[in-house]
Every structure is written in structure tokens, then in C-alpha cells.
């Protein structure tokens, strides 16, 4: 049977598909079935897509900001995951308090997921509440005025458009709030 594979292309197709399918199925469809935590929302997690559909104005703003984040490719340079690495918990933390690591239950409603793969800029998984709206407005207009040496491009079409700026800020302030971990209060709720 094995010897015939290189002479019979139907057999070949079957074997190539089969070999691939073992790993293909076990690593795509099986994991969410084996690990229920992927689909179980964290207690503090807001279901913004559903709230926005229900007419919640704030949730709608968050979802609009998220769409801008996707549109302008923010996620190519900013990750949204505090990994199980000590330095990550310090960098994602705030005022000497370490941030908890990111867990699957904090991202149940994310679509598309925005975990990211490259950090040209800092991780944003716990960015919510760290800087106020004025800071973000200035930063979007000219990042280097607040962070000299930054590699972030300016986004005048966001900074100068009140609707987009409000949405972006609402989205950023929503990040990382499924877990309650900060001791002092934020700049903004």
C-alpha cells in the first residue's frame, strides 16, 4: 500500500490529506473543546458587542474605537497580552503594582482578536485608565511631543475628528479592565 502512493495520485491525495488532518483537527477544533476557559467570560468582562447592539452609547463608542484600531493597523505595533513573563507584569502594571497576566477569559468577546505579534510600541493589554483624554489627543496629534524618540506616526485624522477621538479614547480606556487590580484610582473612569 505504501509503495503505491508515489504511483497513484488518488492514494497520494488521500494520504497527504490524512497526515495533515490529524494535526489539523487536533490543533484547531479540539482545543476549544478540551479547554472550556477559552469560552467562559471573566466575571468583570463587559460584553461590548452585545451591549452596543442593545443601544448602550458607551459600548457603541468602544466598538467604534476598536474598529479604528483595526482599520489603522495599531495592532501591528502594539500587542494586547501580558504574558507569563515577570517583566511583562511590571511593564503592564501601574505605579509599582504589578498587573495580573492575561488569561483567555478576558478576551471571550474579542473579534477580531488583537493579541498582536510585534511590539514596536508598548503592550496595551492594561492600558485602560492610565492616561486621560487630553494626553491621548496630544499624543495622537504628535506622539513625540509627549514621548521623545517614539516611532509612532501621527494620526491627525483621529486627533482632529472629535467623533473618532472620543471613540479611540473610550476603547483604550476599556482595555484590561476585566480584572480589578489597581490600588489607586485611574485618571478616568
Amino acid at each position, binding site marked *: 500500500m505504501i*509503495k503505491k502512493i508515489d504511483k497513484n495520485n488518488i492514494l497520494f491525495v488521500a494520504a497527504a490529506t490524512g497526515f495533515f488532518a490529524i494535526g489539523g483537527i487536533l490543533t484547531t477544533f479540539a482545543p476549544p473543546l478540551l479547554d472550556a476557559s477559552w469560552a467562559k467570560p471573566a466575571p468583570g468582562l463587559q460584553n461590548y458587542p452585545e451591549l452596543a447592539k442593545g443601544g448602550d452609547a458607551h459600548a457603541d463608542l468602544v466598538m467604534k474605537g476598536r474598529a479604528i484600531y483595526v482599520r489603522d493597523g495599531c495592532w501591528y505595533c502594539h500587542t494586547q497580552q501580558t504574558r507569563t513573563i515577570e517583566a511583562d507584569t511590571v511593564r503592564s502594571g501601574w505605579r509599582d503594582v504589578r498587573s495580573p497576566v492575561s488569561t483567555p477569559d478576558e478576551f471571550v468577546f474579542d473579534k477580531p482578536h488583537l493579541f498582536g505579534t510585534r511590539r514596536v510600541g508598548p503592550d496595551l493589554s492594561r492600558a485602560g485608565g492610565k492616561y486621560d483624554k487630553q494626553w491621548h489627543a496630544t499624543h495622537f496629534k504628535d506622539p513625540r511631543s509627549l514621548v521623545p524618540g517614539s516611532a509612532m506616526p501621527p494620526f491627525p485624522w483621529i486627533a482632529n475628528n472629535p467623533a473618532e477621538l472620543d471613540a479611540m479614547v473610550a476603547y483604550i480606556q476599556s482595555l484590561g479592565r476585566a480584572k480589578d487590580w489597581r490600588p489607586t484610582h485611574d485618571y478616568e473612569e
Partner: protein
Amino acid sequence: MGDYTYASVFWMYSLMALFVFGTLYFLVKALRSGAVRDDEAPKYRMLEDDVPEGGHHGEKA
């Protein structure tokens, strides 16, 4: 339940065992069926500048 006794860890072990035995099984089967003999012909044939069907022995009418 310790780190090494989670159900998913046993699942990993059984998966690895399955692959090791599967590999050995197919290896033995392949050796017995002669899959590893006499299969070097294509590498010589591919060096010839072949021509499409009908071209080799006189032109296609």
C-alpha cells in the same frame, strides 16, 4: 492535582505514545512492503529534457 497530573498532561502523554508507536508501525510496514527499494528511477528521468506526449517519436499529425 499537581502540574504533572492534569488531565491535559495525560492527554499529551497518550498522544506522544500514539505517535511513537504509529511511527514504528508504519516504518516496519514500509520496510516489509519494499517501499524503500527501487524508487530512484524518477530522479534520473527528470534530468532528461522531456517533450510532451506525441513529440518524441515524430510530429503529431
